[in-house]
């Protein structure tokens, strides 16, 4: 890393380490914004890049029109929802891996508190909807068995999200932000998801308690009350840890920011609370339009398998792709798959947001160790997500807000894996030792 600091001094720029572990160079005079998840340097001189923002906007609009014409209006709406998610994720830097790492290393809890708020807000709406409080709607939650498959998958995912530098949503929005290092993570995320889908039948044969739905067992009002109590306890726990270390907690809104609301909304960065609110609203929109909660990583396995087939690979022995939803998705256009379209939307939305913020494709220097950890992390992300029935979005968030106990198991296992991942990052020289960051 010393070389980067030298380069920064020679070029008259400052160097900082991003939440993804890659080194960034930012112009002198840039202003730092800390939103609780990460500090981002924004230079007024480079703000708003029309050569990025305008093509991204045109791309989203053109693809939405194409989807409306070629597939269905529903797919077009899902693309726009995905783009909204990409903007929210990027502008608020709403990453799970960075937030968890910051808590583990520094005891700063703003990002985790925002994630808890997101889960609580979405639960408030999802529980009645999925619990049958509203008649005439046919919606489906994310349910999976509480068993070894989820336990192992989420644990591996937790390690992978620290090594790879992003979770499911984080990988997509950082790729959209132009972080070329994350392309390696994404590539191996896809490969891991394909390998995971091949091995999944073996994993699902391992012991499990089966699907446990709090909505079915307790009814939605009691289940919602319990869920909110558990989330409140978690919120209190993490904020207590931060309070003990610093004597107070970071705010979820940046009170120092004096720019007009509209300017902040368009050009960012957003306080992490705005990100949570935006993601909550768009999660609800996803449920209502797609009929199921927001998910990400199913598409990665689908893309990888399609590429394998296009290269002449044989998938006849891959039972996961031979029947059910997966086989249907494989047999039709990628643009007909809701998850794929939303993922494409997230990337395009993040490109748009990065262009508006003037932060597209930062000048990051990628070293060999970053490439190696991105490869290992990406593979673990994909493999783990497949075993765990989804990533931090489709498995953790969607599971929790659907009242499925596997979401809570995912949280425990994923966080445990992240502890290992954070230590591995230090071991590999990606992060400084913790005693040097306090």
């Amino acid at each position, binding site marked *: 890393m010393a070389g980067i600091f030298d380069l920064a001094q020679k070029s008259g720029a400052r160097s900082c380490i991003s939440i993804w572990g890659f080194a960034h160079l930012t*112009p002198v005079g840039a202003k730092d914004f800390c939103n609780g998840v990460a500090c981002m340097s924004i230079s007024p001189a480079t703000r708003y890049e029309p050569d990025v923002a305008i093509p991204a906007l045109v791309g989203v609009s053109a693809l939405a029109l194409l989807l409306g014409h070629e597939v269905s209006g529903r797919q077009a709406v899902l693309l726009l929802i995905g783009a909204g998610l990409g903007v929210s994720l990027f502008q608020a830097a709403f990453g799970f891996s960075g937030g968890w790492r910051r808590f583990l290393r520094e005891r700063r809890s703003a990002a985790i508190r925002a994630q808890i708020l997101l889960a609580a807000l979405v639960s408030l709406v999802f529980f009645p909807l999925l619990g049958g409080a509203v008649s005439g709607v046919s919606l489906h939650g994310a349910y999976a068995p509480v068993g070894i498959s989820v336990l192992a998958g989420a644990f591996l995912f937790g390690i992978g999200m620290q090594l790879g530098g992003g979770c499911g949503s984080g990988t997509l929005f950082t790729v959209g932000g132009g972080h070329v290092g994350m392309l390696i993570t994404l590539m191996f995320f896809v490969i891991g998801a394909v390998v995971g889908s091949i091995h999944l*039948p073996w994993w699902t044969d391992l012991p499990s308690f089966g699907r446990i739905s709090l909505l079915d067992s307790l009814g939605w009002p009691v289940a919602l009350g319990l869920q909110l109590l558990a989330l409140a306890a978690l919120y209190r726990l993490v904020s207590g840890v931060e309070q003990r270390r610093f004597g107070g907690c970071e705010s979820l809104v940046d009170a120092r920011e004096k720019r007009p609301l509209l300017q902040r909304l368009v050009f960012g960065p957003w306080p992490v609370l705005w990100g949570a609110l935006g993601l909550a609203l768009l999660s609800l929109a996803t449920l209502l339009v797609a009929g199921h909660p927001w998910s990400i990583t199913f598409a990665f396995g689908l893309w990888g398998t399609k590429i394998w087939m296009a290269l002449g690979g044989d998938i006849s022995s891959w039972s996961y792709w031979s029947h059910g*939803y997966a086989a249907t998705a494989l047999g039709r256009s990628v643009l007909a798959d809701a998850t794929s379209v939303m993922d494409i939307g997230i990337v395009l939305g993040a490109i748009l947001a990065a262009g508006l913020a003037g932060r597209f494709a930062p000048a990051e220097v990628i070293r060999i160790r970053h490439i190696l950890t991105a490869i290992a992390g990406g593979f673990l992300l994909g493999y783990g997500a497949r075993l765990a029935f989804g990533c931090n979005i489709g498995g953790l968030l969607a599971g929790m807000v659907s009242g499925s106990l596997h979401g809570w198991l995912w949280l425990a296992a994923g966080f445990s894996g992240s502890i290992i991942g954070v230590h591995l990052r230090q071991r590999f020289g990606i992060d400084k030792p913790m005693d040097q960051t306090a």
Partner: protein
Amino acid sequence: MKNTRRRNRWIMGTFVGTAAIAVAIDHTRHRLPEPLPPQHSESAPNPSAVVIVDGDTDTPCSLETSPCSLEESPCSLDETTGAVDESPCSL
């Protein structure tokens, strides 16, 4: 720094362009429906037959081949089907 940034932009542009081409290839391999057999009726062609392809565009719960076909979440085990392996994200 400028050169690194420019290089990264080129890499990203290449990635986006390649992805767009891949999606286009995949879509053109799947999208076209089976051609309808030629109609030899003496009566005038029924215009309603032409719009069937787009018939589901205004309903949010439909896909091109089967309306309301997303009965299962991409990340769930739908046990109502009675078989674990019928779940899309779960097998």
